[in-house]
């Protein structure tokens, strides 16, 4: 039959064509990073996604920068600054000769424009930083910031400075809808191309104040499938990967030529118990501190880390209000709630919670309501179901029943605001300055309007007047040492109420190859991630691996990988096509050859 032959001919032609096209050798130095999350919005006023922040960190420079080792405030666009005696006014001197990537000069006017409009129009992402600050520019290289209240965050000013000659054209409404794709920036790289669902590309900025970076391009490739991302990393098709799945992490850390990292940035997950000060009421037992303490003693965080996180997490007792670990206090032994089921049972016995009807569940003192707590399980979380599984198991062992109620985030927000819950598991990712995170647990942050139950931050539903007082103190404390002391005291108080049980500090799992680029830095040092960190310092510091090393590995790896990739793809396709063709042809032949008459078969 002609069919199989024709198919083979087609296949051969295609093979020749593709091999001829081939993969051109890469002349530009391109860093490719794999990530499974797509860009949300590139508008720094309103975007919220993790990849968005990474692009802004590269595209826009800030007045002050953050050191990679410890988040120390270091010069950025401003080379120096001076504060007034009362600490309310800071004067920054910009570097000489600053230019935007399109060649326009970067002056104090851009800074003033950004900060003042951000304050006036209450830009969502800027508001908490600039709400009390007025900016002015006595001359082109000088910026004066005046704060109406003492602000310990100053002189740190790390909001993204926008080019007035582009953004100044937009009115208050338009500016929140602007897509931010003009490509004019002042960071080490500027955005060159965005293809949603596929990739986004940034190019080196010749006019970057710290000098043009060594690499020419950074490409972030979106992978819908994390296994495919890992495969691409091991094959050398990408140079680094973020949000590596737990199932591949171990295998990657044992692969030669690849470094796998558990990056901590202060993010944590907690088991939150209803403190009872909200609109609604929890199970009455939870109002008793003893019961909450018993629950705290019944949680084995290490097992959760080992089993649910496959060992990829770090324990923490107190809440982490900052990416900088120095803000987290140590909880002394006598105050700690260690995993101790016997102690938990003791506490419940002391409180008079006995199992009067022998069903294994304790009741309120005097034989009232059984201790059956409602556990809201976040359906969007990978880990919440596993955690709920363990927590309910342990609580059952100490005589408390748990009813799991699955909920999506939208509903959970409402439920927590209304106070109609007993427990849930959720997480936070703090900033570098602890203030925002600490502010969330003040008394006035508890939802108070039944019509609008989601306007709140205090999802512990706990009001502690002393905590609030300490908060106000640290908010204006300009001496860092003293401020740390105050914050530690606040967090120890918070811990003692046993409403927030920090389960673990979660880690960003990342991996990068060592054969093409070198110079990755962790932020903060030793424990932090190398990418998607607070100020993303790595990219500007990366350099190609020296040529001797490359030749030694047999310029094989990079080029070879791509060529292999091509061959593999084309070969696979050809094989598939030919096989399909042969199969189709064979079956057709086989069927049509059967020419026995119907009579013979009946």
């Amino acid at each position, binding site marked *: 039959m002609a069919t199989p032959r024709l198919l083979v001919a087609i296949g051969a032609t295609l093979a020749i064509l593709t091999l001829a096209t081939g993969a051109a050798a890469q002349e530009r130095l391109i860093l*490719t990073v794999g990530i499974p999350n797509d860009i*949300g919005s590139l508008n720094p006023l309103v975007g919220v996604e993790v990849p968005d922040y990474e692009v802004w960190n590269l595209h826009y420079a800030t007045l002050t920068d953050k050191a990679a080792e410890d988040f120390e405030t270091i010069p950025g666009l401003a080379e120096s600054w001076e504060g007034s005696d009362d600490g309310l006014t800071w004067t920054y001197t910009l570097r000489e000769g600053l230019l935007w990537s399109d060649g326009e000069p970067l002056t104090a006017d851009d800074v003033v424009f950004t900060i003042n409009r951000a304050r006036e129009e*209450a830009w969502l992402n800027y508001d908490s930083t600039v709400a009390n600050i007025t900016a002015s520019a006595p001359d082109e290289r000088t910026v004066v910031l005046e704060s109406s209240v003492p602000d310990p965050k100053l002189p740190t000013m790390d909001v993204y400075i926008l080019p007035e000659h582009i953004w100044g054209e937009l009115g208050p409404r338009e500016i929140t809808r602007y897509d931010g794709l003009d490509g004019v920036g002042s960071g080490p790289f500027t955005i060159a191309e965005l293809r*949603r669902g596929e990739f986004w590309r940034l190019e080196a900025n010749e006019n970057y104040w710290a000098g043009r970076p060594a690499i020419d391009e950074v490409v972030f490739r979106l992978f819908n499938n994390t296994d495919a991302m890992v*495969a691409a990393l091991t094959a050398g098709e990408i140079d680094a990967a973020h949000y590596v799945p737990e199932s591949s992490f171990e295998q990657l850390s044992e692969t030669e030529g690849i470094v796998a990292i558990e990056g901590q940035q202060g993010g944590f997950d907690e088991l939150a118990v209803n403190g009872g000060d909200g609109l609604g009421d929890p199970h009455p037992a939870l109002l008793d501190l003893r019961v909450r303490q018993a629950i705290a003693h019944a949680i084995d965080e290490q097992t959760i880390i080992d089993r649910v996180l496959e060992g990829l997490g770090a324990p923490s007792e107190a809440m982490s209000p900052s990416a900088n670990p120095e803000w987290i206090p140590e909880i002394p032994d006598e105050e700690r709630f260690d995993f101790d089921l016997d102690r938990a049972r003791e506490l419940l016995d002391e409180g008079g919670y006995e199992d009067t009807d022998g069903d294994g569940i304790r009741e309120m003192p005097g034989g009232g309501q059984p201790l059956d707590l409602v556990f809201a399980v976040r*359906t969007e979380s990978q880990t919440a179901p596993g955690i709920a599984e363990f927590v309910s198991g342990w609580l059952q062992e100490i005589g408390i029943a748990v009813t799991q109620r699955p909920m999506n985030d939208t509903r959970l*927000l409402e439920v927590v605001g209304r106070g109609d819950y007993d427990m849930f598991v959720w997480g936070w990712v703090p900033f570098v300055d602890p203030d925002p995170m600490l502010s969330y647990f003040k008394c006035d942050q508890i939802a108070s309007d039944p019509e609008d139950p*989601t306007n709140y931050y205090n999802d512990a539903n706990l009001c502690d007047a002393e905590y609030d007082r300490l908060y106000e103190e640290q908010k204006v404390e300009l001496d860092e040492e003293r401020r740390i002391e105050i914050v530690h005291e606040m967090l120890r108080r918070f811990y003692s109420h046993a409403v927030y049980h920090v389960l673990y500090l979660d880690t960003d799992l990342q991996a990068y190859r060592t054969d093409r680029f070198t110079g990755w830095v962790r932020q903060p040092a030793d424990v932090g991630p190398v990418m998607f960190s607070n100020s993303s310092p790595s990219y500007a510091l990366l350099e190609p691996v020296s040529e001797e090393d490359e030749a030694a590995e047999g310029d094989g790896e990079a080029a070879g990988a791509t060529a292999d990739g091509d061959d593999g793809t084309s070969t696979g*396709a050809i094989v598939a096509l030919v096989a399909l063709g042969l199969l189709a042809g064979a079956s057709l032949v086989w069927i049509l050859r059967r020419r026995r*008459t119907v009579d013979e078969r009946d």
Partner: protein
Amino acid sequence: MNRRRVIGKILASVGTLAFVVCFNFFLFRVVESDPVGNLYRGRNLSPEQREELRREFGLDGSQAEQFARYVAQTAQLNFGRSYVTNEPVIDEIARRAWPTVALVGTSALLSALIGILIGVVAAWRRGSKTDYASTGFTMATYSMPDFWLGMLLLLVFAVGLGWFPVGGIVDPATGGGLERLLDQAHHMVLPAATLTLAYLGEYALIMRSSLLETMREDYLLLARAKGLRDVAVRNRHAVPNALLPVTTLLAINIGFILSGAIAVETIFSWPGLGLATFEALSGPDLPMLQGLFLVFSAAVIVANLAADLLYSYLDPRVRTA
């Protein structure tokens, strides 16, 4: 065919579509949610900002006003903005439509072709081992959860043998043009194979029984009496007539394969509308879900209409009526 009939059928389809649009609206309004709060968690919004955002999301006004606005917007193909990306839903859908069209189209075609082929063979060799084997095979694949079959194929051919990629639609390293196209085809082999195998069973079974029934018809006896060879009898008379119920099945099955694509695309991370549905479930991203539901329904309604019209056109008995 009777023009009035055609218009009648088209109107009926439009009516169904209208029903779906209304149903869509009320369904999602049942969910008492505050999407503004959810999206902007982590920022202290002032009441004015909230009001502004609520207006942007179209959540202000009475139910009737919201409904009227919804219908008007839907007519203009404005499905609102995604809660996740804040981009217009219709853009998202347009962007992700073609991978699903490619996958579902290929699978629908292949499952029909192969299924019909198997059905013909099985019917023609009724009672033989081939019949039992093929019928058994098709019933087995038809009884499997389609995505489970995908997991098996992934395990054997992608993870185990490494012949095919583990997911996605294209390797990042490929350039453009032909190379890219071939790579995409390479990535489509496993998901298409999954959907094809999972859905060819129905074609095989129906073709088989349809053909068996047709073979008993009188006009075949006449053809044989005329001395035509077996194969000719089968190919020129039996099969074409037996194909009739199957052609409508083709269009109707699009609905099933489209639904099946939701789970299968998830397994293979195939970036189409199915995966978009799965992703929209976290949240849930209600505007996205609404838009997708509408698109799926519209696709099936149109396919069914096509099947209906096609059947009327093909069936000689109906044509003269």
